[in-house]
């Protein structure tokens, strides 16, 4: 049941995770958990809000290697960086082609 729900509501996750990562909306953690509670676990609004609140306020503090977060961050950027590189490469090639032609005609 849950897996079906997750598939159905995937777009919620993508949007909210994006908002959370980029810190655009404050309390996105809460909203995210609220959506999890109501939409996926099929709870009603009152229970959903309560569960959402509890999920929100329970960060676990444990040791984390500071380098790991940077590695994960790079993985998140990977596609963006790859595309940027490919675009740049193409653009340079186009510019070079134009430059060559321009120089020849001169």
């Amino acid at each position, binding site marked *: 049941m849950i897996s079906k729900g997750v598939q159905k509501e995937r777009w919620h996750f993508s949007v909210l995770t994006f908002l959370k*990562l*980029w*810190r655009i909306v404050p309390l996105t953690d809460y909203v995210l958990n609220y959506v999890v509670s109501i939409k996926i676990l099929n709870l009603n609004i009152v229970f959903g809000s309560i569960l959402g609140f509890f999920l929100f306020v329970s*960060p*676990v*503090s*444990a*040791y*984390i*290697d*500071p*380098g*790991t*977060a*940077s*590695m*994960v*961050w*790079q*993985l*998140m*950027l*990977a*596609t*963006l*960086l*790859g*595309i*940027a*590189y*490919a675009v*740049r490469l193409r653009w340079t090639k186009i510019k070079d082609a134009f430059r060559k032609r321009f120089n020849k005609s001169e």
Partner: protein
Amino acid sequence: MKHRVHDEDGKIISSYKDPSGYVFFKDGKLFRRVNECYIDIYRQARDSGLFQELIQKKLLIEHEEIEEYAGDDPHLVIRPRMLKFISYPYEWSFSQLKDAALVILEIQRISISYGFTLKDAHAFNIQFDDNLPVMIDTLSFDRWDQTPWEAYRQFCESFLIPLALMRYRNLYLNTLLKQFLNGIPLEIGSKLLPLRTRLSIPLLMHIHLHADRVVAKQKTGVVSSELKPVQKFSEQSMLGLCMSLNRAVRTLELSKANSIWYTYYHKSCIYSPNAFDIKKQFVAEIIEKQRPSVIWDLGCNIGEFSFLAAKYSDLVVAIDSDPMCIEGLYQQCKIKKIANVLPLQMDLINPSPPLGWELQERLSLFERGGCDLVLALALIHHLCISANVPLEYVARLLGSLSKQLVIEFVPKEDPQVQVLLSSRKDVFKNYCREAFESAFAEHFGIIRAERLPESDRILYHMVRLV
């Protein structure tokens, strides 16, 4: 505790971090040991042609292989070329740090094409050789297995944040690297930078959002083993990362802030043209005759005399407390292609101290090899009047530094000293020519003294007594 830079077996203390090997001194020569665990990677990097390309492009220091030991403790010994002077990132100007950052990125880009990656990217791995930044740690490479860049955070903290702080806040902020030897932490850097840096996409991505991620992960406290990346980081992404960081570094440019020292010679006409020529001639004659190998130009200003001294010596270490002067001097060296002047920003009142583990990881200024001649032109009044240092102390310090000394005495009647005294009480009753000469007579013998025309300033050439 007795100060030492290396262990009893010659191992240099600053190379304790890397299990791949270490640097050691033997019979006054510098060597690097490659431990068993790293021999394979070293050979692969060498045979792939990576070292050759980097050395050819002057990005990596040259080395020769000395010995290969088999048996119980197999290891290799290589001998890197020794540099004339070691400097540290907290002494570099903005452009020096920027050039060093670009060299790291270029090395990473080339390494990736050979299937290798830089495993650490801290600024201490870069040194200035003939005024070009060069990587000195031959053992910093690792095989790349399509993972994100391990040294990404270190690069951001050691280069990108200091550069952004210098650009957007103050040029003096490179001195924060004295406190944070491994780089200014992301969360601190992100908080210190002005809000408008969030509008720059590269800075937003590599500093602010990166810092937010690190802080968020620390708060949620996910254990590192759970976060082993399973997703591959493609070559294109890695090259994209290098490109993006390169862009972030390149777009940081200094605003045309004016420094009072930078325009010193041009605006305030303290010397008549005749006096300035005589001063130049005096210095040139001595250096040409003595031919010192290493000269320290203390209070070098825009380096007028450093360039003069560079003609007759192997290396001039030009030191000044004003970051803009050092920036200008470095730019001039690049334009004029002068390789043997190394500009460093440092205040003599508080020179670079020994730092790091047991205070032996990074050396103080005075532990990094002496010099053959010290130029201290128009410096004494700043030390004695601005900073209240007694003349005897100045003489003692300069006496400990070198055998030869060229010094300019600036008397109280000088207009520049009057400016210094205008806003404070004159408590310097002993600041006069006689007191100066007697203080220096304890350490030096005066060989030659010459008064500059149309001025009260006197130039001295002194030689240490013992």
